[in-house]
């Protein structure tokens, strides 16, 4: 392998290692996983109680990091949506 290639391409193995460590620390503690699922369901249920929400206009994103997880819920509420959900 030439010295140029060494510069051109960063090593991939350290990235694999880091990704695995983060992923597995989450998968091993299934509690953490369930909590995010639970929060997602309950938060959406609360929103649905007050406004009619088009399910297609709801975006849920989760980002699991080594120390924290970020749960991002993006709900599009139309202007005439003050109609209470049934």
């Amino acid at each position, binding site marked *: 392998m030439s010295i140029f290639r060494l510069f051109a391409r960063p*090593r*991939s193995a350290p990235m*694999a*290692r880091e990704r*695995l*460590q983060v992923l597995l620390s989450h998968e*091993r503690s299934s509690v953490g996983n369930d909590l995010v699922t639970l929060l997602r369901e309950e938060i959406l249920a609360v929103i649905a109680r007050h406004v009619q929400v088009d399910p297609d206009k709801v975006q849920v994103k989760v980002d699991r990091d080594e120390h924290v997880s970020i749960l991002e819920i993006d709900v599009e509420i139309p202007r005439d949506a003050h109609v209470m959900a049934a």
Partner: protein
Amino acid sequence: MGKVVVVTSGKGGVGKTTSTAALGAALAQRNEKVVVVDFDVGLRNLDLVMGAERRVVYDIVNVIQGDAKLPQALIRDKRLDNLFLLPASQTRDKDALTPEGVERVMADLKRYFDWVICDSPAGIERGATLAMRHADMAVVVTNPEVSSVRDSDRIIGLLDAKTMKAERGERIEKHLLLTRYDVNRAERGDMLKVEDVLEILSIPLIGIIPESSDVLRASNIGAPVTLADAKSAPAMAYFDAARRLAGEDLPITIPGEKRGIFGKIFGRKAA
């Protein structure tokens, strides 16, 4: 009573069947009575890798359903007198394996053989959990690749929860067998290193099998690599792994490692 070993991985295609055949033949060459059992009902392949595909008459499902006696279903290896194969069925659905039936067959096999080596199907479904159910020890076959390592982690969790040993509160012995390892790519930083995988999975290492064309050649001719070419690098790695499985304490070597002057100075170890 013989020892029951499950060769498992979660992910498919990492070398479970190759490793089952190679370890079985290696142990049999130590003059121990060995049976390799194919649990992959519906997709059997151990018979092919062992070179016994044309001699399959009965299989494990026939034995469980009472259509055949266990000795009728066992196929003796043509090269080693004390190596036997219990094939899986090719046609029936996987529900044909019942927990009670498997328990009976395993109990019988343990009486006759020193080693009962179970080749698990991929996945975490019934076939895989039945294959590990009665194991005393597990060989977790892993490639130095992210999806394989993740699946091995899941399997290790299952081994600690779903085996008889675990349910009795005992510890099931788990060993990592790293296969398809390419020392050059690992040194270049393009493949997870032995130390990386060990650190992530934290179970003891039983061997490192190098990526090698000898493995494919062995399966082409229908022989475990430890019989096809006993002097090849993967065969020697499997022989060492078999000795460790039998309880010998051998230092781990990384196959294919070119020990230059730096290697000699900093003499590194894998485990």
